[in-house]
């Protein structure tokens, strides 16, 4: 092993040697790079050494003395890890900055080296004064680096930086002096042994030391100088400041905490305030570097709070801190580097990334890492953090962390949305420099790798198979292949997975079998439609499969962590699917925000459960005895963001309507069922608890109102897909209502509805999507009379709407019949009436849908439209066969469902006698009704054919028109604002009050962010006053 001191020595030696090299910049750079590589090698060696064996940390004493007389460096696992991170980042950072370093010459290289050196020593040193010295060295070096890219902004900001760090260092120095005065030593270990906080005045000494370190972490609001640095410095430097320097300061803070344990509580507060406030401020930022600055500060705040929580978190502290830190470290540096590659001042210009798709992928990885999506490390970190905090009953902390993360999500996903969706045609081409690209790519790969490593560390994730994710990665790698290969492979993948899981589930777990069937079979069917597309459809298959993988994980999850893993995966996949639509940018953002919000509610709920039961099994939800209502509500809210219940439904119409034709059924018919599945799990686990009954009662009302508002809003839509989207909201409202009944019939209804809704909504969305592909518009009033051009589509929609509306003999009626029985059985009459009422309102939009598109007058430009693509027709007709089977033989479905539900609600089951189902109240023979109606219909049909077989076929304008002839199809097609009278009578019910509420909320948050941002006025003196004020206020808070 090379002595770690040589990290310092070779760096110093080379730094001096550089002076002798004269103007040979390339050589100097080579030397610097090899030095950094050497430093990497040394720390890597130690890292591996400590990783393999748990030996005592190595102590290095300079000058042959022992502390307190000598300067003491320590090399343990922690130090090895951090120096490794610093040195690798330094190495790659230098590579990234190759061009700039060569331009500015060897002085800058020297400074760079010194900067890295300073950070290394800050990590290793155990000596307070030494810490001060090297922190000064590091700051001054950094100040030099800031003006690496000298411009009108960077020079004043470098100056402000120097002043601010000077002030902070003076605190550190003062603290050190006092500490030495009171303890007689400068060694950190000895100072902490001296328990200075009990010494009068000693506490102030360590307080000053610690606070200086905290201030180095740029807490809100004493951080204006740092923001200016981020904004003005070269992004390569920004990466170093945010990634390495921040990390080092955090480690120093961690190292110094034992000196002043009393600071922990205030540290948590300061950190979280910084976290929430910085993210809030980030909301109104448009400059990418400054935005990253806010995000950095937020993350550092979170991390310093985490350090403060050391006691609370116990064993898990290292894992949590490390995963979050590493996420921040990689992601933030990566983002800064990307910013350097793009080099634009507005986040809207990041659409440029699409010119080099790999950069977009990296960008996505970094963003998702910051928010904490699986399988990236921060996901596990945040999960564990929330779990542990909840276990310690620290709900305030949980809340603020989740709020802060949520706000961070807002701007990060807005940014991601810009990058994915905005028009980039008028943005300049740019060349991808290998020296800039390589470090970024490395960081991305390392990030994923750490995630995988971290996941291996997690307990409660053992049931998760990584094969689907590997398969998805493979699909991504072949993204350049034509569509039919990828589509076939994807279908094969889903089919294989179905084959693997479904038969087994059928015998073991009917509930999971059904939902798995909906997800996987539905996935296969909707993917078949994908053959209709031409070209490559880049990026579609990986994200679609990610969603399906997430859904499958949810089904197979046995622990809450696995469930949440799948949930987040599904959210991420569906986000990318949704944002693929033409005008989806805002809808996808609102989808993501509601999803994140919901996910955090779920997280909190799981956290509370874990706190009490100390178990991650989903089944443990049922063992909960305290705070059952709270957990139930949190989880229900989380799931209801997916089922889009009233109040949380804002995202759905736009997202579904603007999505691509075969994506709409995926997200509507399939994805929403994930929420239903979650609610089912929740109610199975907690349904026995008497406190839940009240909540379920209100959930029932919520479901009923959702159904009403959804259906009524659907009736007033002019956009076919939007109409179907509102219809989905309403249908999920029915399901929520039925679930909330928590009775045998209620759940039977809910399950029956779920399956039926999957079938007919998939049919409708696929058909309408296919029609939209052909006619090129969503607006129904622009279509009309397409029945003659598209008989296949018409029949599909006809079957779909009959099934949806609940008209016998098709399957929808079974749902209505069950509903009546369940409602009367449960005595929920008035909610039931609302549900029935909304069921009839459904006729309005269903008729509008089929009439406006297929009946009425054919428009000129659609005269030559042909029938829907065969690839859409195949899955549609398979689904129709499904509907027909269920309609003719409802017992085939209802009997197993009833048996399954009897596990939980044995009372009130249907009695079966052949095809005749009998409930407490009524009876119904689906099979017989089908036959009776069939015979009757055929008889009448034959009769009419006999009577009027010779009817003359006429064309569209051969109508009686008050002795005139219509002039244009457009003016003869009665479709726009079809239910004007109804709107006049009852339209007030669907006035967009809820949307207005959310708009008001977002306006309010944005104006708050804007107002708070005014404290940063760019004035260096003001910034110093903030630092001083911060110091003083904290001082009074602590003492």
């Amino acid at each position, binding site marked *: 092993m090379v002595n770690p001191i040589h990290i310092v020595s070779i760096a110093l030696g080379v730094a001096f040697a550089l002076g002798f090299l004269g103007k040979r910049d390339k050589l100097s750079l080579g030397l610097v790079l090899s030095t950094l590589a050497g430093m990497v090698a040394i720390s890597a060696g130690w890292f591996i050494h400590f990783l393999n064996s748990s030996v005592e940390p190595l102590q290095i004493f300079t000058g042959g003395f022992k502390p307190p007389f000598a300067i003491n460096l320590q090399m343990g696992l922690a130090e090895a890890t951090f120096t490794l991170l610093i040195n690798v980042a330094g190495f790659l950072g230098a590579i990234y900055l190759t061009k700039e370093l060569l331009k500015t010459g060897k002085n800058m290289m020297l400074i760079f080296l010194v900067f890295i050196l300073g950070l290394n020593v800050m990590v290793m040193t155990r000596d307070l004064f030494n810490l001060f010295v090297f922190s000064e060295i590091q700051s001054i070096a950094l100040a030099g680096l800031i003006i690496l890219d000298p411009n009108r902004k960077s020079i004043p900001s470098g100056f402000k930086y120097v002043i601010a760090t000077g002030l902070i260092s003076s605190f550190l120095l003062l603290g050190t002096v006092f500490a030495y005065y009171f303890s007689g030593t400068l060694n950190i270990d000895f100072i902490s042994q001296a328990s200075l906080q009990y010494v009068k005045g000693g506490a102030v000494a360590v307080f000053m030391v610690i606070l200086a370190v905290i201030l180095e972490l740029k807490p809100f609001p004493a951080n204006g100088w740092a923001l200016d640095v981020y904004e003005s410095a070269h992004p390569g430097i920004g990466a170093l400041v945010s990634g390495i320097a921040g990390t080092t300061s955090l480690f120093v803070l961690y190292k110094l905490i034992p000196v002043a344990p009393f600071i922990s509580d205030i540290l948590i507060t300061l950190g979280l305030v910084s976290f929430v406030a910085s993210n809030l401020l980030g909301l109104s930022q448009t400059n990418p570097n400054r935005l990253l600055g806010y995000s950095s500060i937020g993350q550092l705040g979170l991390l310093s709070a985490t350090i403060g929580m050391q006691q609370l978190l116990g064993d898990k502290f290292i894992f949590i801190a490390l995963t979050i830190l590493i996420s921040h470290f990689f992601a933030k540096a990566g983002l800064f580097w990307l910013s350097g590659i793009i080099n634009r001042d507005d986040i809207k210009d990041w659409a440029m990334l699409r010119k080099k798709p790999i950069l977009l992928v990296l960008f996505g990885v970094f963003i998702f890492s910051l928010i904490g999506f699986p399988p990236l490390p921060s996901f596990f970190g945040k999960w564990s953090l929330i779990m542990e905090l909840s276990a310690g009953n620290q709900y305030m902390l949980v809340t603020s962390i989740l709020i802060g993360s949520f706000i961070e999500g807002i701007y990060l996903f807005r940014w991601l949305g810009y990058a994915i969706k905005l028009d980039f045609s008028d943005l300049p081409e740019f060349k991808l420099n290998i020296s800039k690209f390589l470090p970024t790519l490395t960081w991305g790969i390392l990030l994923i790798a750490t995630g995988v490593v971290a996941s291996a560390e997690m307990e409660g994730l053992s049931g998760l198979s990584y094969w689907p994710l590997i398969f998805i990665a493979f699909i991504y790698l072949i993204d350049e292949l034509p569509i039919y290969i990828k589509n076939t492979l994807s279908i094969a993948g889903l089919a294989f997975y179905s084959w693997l899981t479904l038969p087994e589930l059928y015998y073991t777990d009917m509930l999971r079998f059904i939902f798995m069937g909906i997800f996987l079979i539905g996935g296969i069917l909707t993917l078949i439609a994908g053959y209709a597309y031409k070209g490559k459809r880049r990026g579609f298959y990986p994200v679609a499969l990610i969603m399906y993988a997430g859904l499958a994980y949810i089904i197979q999850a046995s622990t809450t962590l696995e469930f949440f893993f799948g949930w987040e995966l599904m959210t991420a996949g569906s986000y990318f699917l949704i944002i693929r639509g033409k005008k989806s940018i805002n809808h996808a953002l609102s989808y993501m925000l509601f999803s994140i919000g919901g996910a955090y509610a779920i997280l909190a709920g799981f956290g509370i459960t874990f706190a009490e039961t100390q178990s991650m099994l989903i089944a443990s939800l049922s063992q909960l005895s305290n705070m059952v209502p709270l957990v139930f509500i949190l989880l229900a809210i989380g799931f209801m963001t997916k089922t889009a219940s009233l109040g949380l439904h804002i995202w759905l119409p736009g997202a579904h309507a603007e999505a691509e034709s075969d994506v709409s059924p995926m997200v509507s018919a399939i994805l929403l069922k994930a929420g239903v599945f979650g609610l089912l799990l929740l109610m199975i686990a907690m349904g026995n608890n008497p406190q839940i009954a009240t909540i379920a009662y209100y959930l029932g009302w919520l479901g009923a109102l959702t159904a009403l508002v959804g259906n009524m809003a659907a009736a007033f839509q002019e956009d076919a897909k939007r109409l179907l989207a509102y219809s989905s909201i309403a249908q999920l409202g029915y399901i929520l209502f039925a679930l909330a009944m928590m009775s045998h019939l209620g759940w039977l209804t809910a399950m029956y509805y779920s399956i039926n809704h999957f079938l007919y909504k998939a049919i409708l969305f696929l058909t309408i999507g296919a029609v939209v592909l052909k006619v090129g518009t969503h607006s129904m009033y622009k279509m009309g009379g397409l029945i003659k051009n598209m008989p296949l589509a018409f029949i599909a929609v006809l079957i779909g709407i009959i099934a949806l509306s609940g008209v016998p003999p098709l399957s929808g009626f079974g749902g209505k*019949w069950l509903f009546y029985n369940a409602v009367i059985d449960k005595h929920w009459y008035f909610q039931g*009436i609302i549900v*029935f009422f909304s069921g009839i309102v459904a006729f309005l939009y269903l008729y509008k849908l089929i009439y406006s598109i297929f009946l009425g007058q054919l428009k000129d430009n659609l005269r030559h439209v042909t029938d829907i693509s065969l690839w859409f027709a195949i899955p549609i007709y398979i689904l129709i066969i499904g509907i027909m089977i269920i309609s003719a033989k409802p017992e085939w479905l209802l009997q197993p469902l009833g048996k399954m539900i009897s596990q939980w609600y044995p009372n009130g089951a249907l009695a079966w006698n052949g095809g005749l189902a009998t409930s407490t109240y*009524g009876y119904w023979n689906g099979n017989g009704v089908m036959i009776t109606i069939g015979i009757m219909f055929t008889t009448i049909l034959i009769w009419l054919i006999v009577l009027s077989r010779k*009817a003359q076929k006429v064309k569209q304008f051969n109508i009686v028109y008050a002795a005139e002839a219509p002039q244009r199809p457009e003016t003869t097609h009665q479709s726009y604002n079809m239910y004007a009278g109804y709107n006049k009578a009852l339209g007030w019910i669907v006035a967009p009050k809820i949307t207005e509420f959310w708009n008001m909320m977002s306006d309010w948050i944005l104006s708050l962010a804007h107002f708070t941002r005014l404290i940063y006025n760019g004035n260096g003196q003001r910034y110093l006053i903030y630092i001083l004020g911060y110091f003083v206020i904290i001082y009074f808070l602590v003492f």
Partner: protein
Amino acid sequence: MDFDIKRLGFTLLGLLIVLNWGLLMNAFMRKIGARVARRIGIPWHQPWIDLFKNYSIRSQITHGLMFYLGPIFRLSGGVGIFLFMPMIITGDHWLNYSFQGDLVLIMYFQFFGMLGMALGAGEGGHPYSAIGISRGLSQFTTIEVPLTLAIISLAIQYDTLSLADIVRAQQGGFMHWSMWTNPFATAAGMLAALGTLGHSPFNLVMAPNEIPIGPPTEYHSTFLGVLQSNGAILHVVEAALFMNLFFGGATNWIEFIVKTFLIYFWSVFVGMVFPRFRIEQSVTWFLKVPLVLGVIAVVMFM
């Protein structure tokens, strides 16, 4: 399901009776209307002649398949409600196929004909058809509210959703009828009946003189004949539904005829007196007094 020729025979006979009674009732009502206006009015056999006339029209036009199927759906709807509704409660002969489904089936089967007709008329391509249908559907949404409340009230009261059982529970005398045992449900249901039977003030769908004549604008000859047959059947079975729900059902055909006549007469009577509502008036009307009555009916048995 075993094929039961006897049941089929009785059912078809019942259908014949209902069809002819429907036509006759129609003539009676028009006759009454004429007498109110101090006219003599149509001869009693006029509906049959009109029916024959329409079936004897020599030429037809069709706008397409759905236009063709529309009347078939419509008549299937009418006949279907007949099939699933017990007509005469005593004995087994006139229960039709009501053993296949209960009240809920009848409620939702009403839509079968409506929807089919709406689709057929839609393919006719006439804007008035679409206007009439949009009005009809709008109005129907709220008509169903008091009706559903009334039905739920009855279902709670009699503890069943089976129409035959509801009728049986009302046997044993005049005072056993729901009309007396559950007056609020009856009131709500009978106000809803005004809407379902579609006379003034709720005849917006056809709205003669305004959107002549709504959905069937394009229908003629045999198509119209089918629609007329359906109208006759539907009026009787709708009246029979209310009879079964609220007025003790029927134990023989005489009782059936008298009761359906009176129920149907109720809507005609109101129609004679009140002018047509505008759409927003008629939609909201059912959410006022009838809704309150229905709610009271449910609350009484909760």
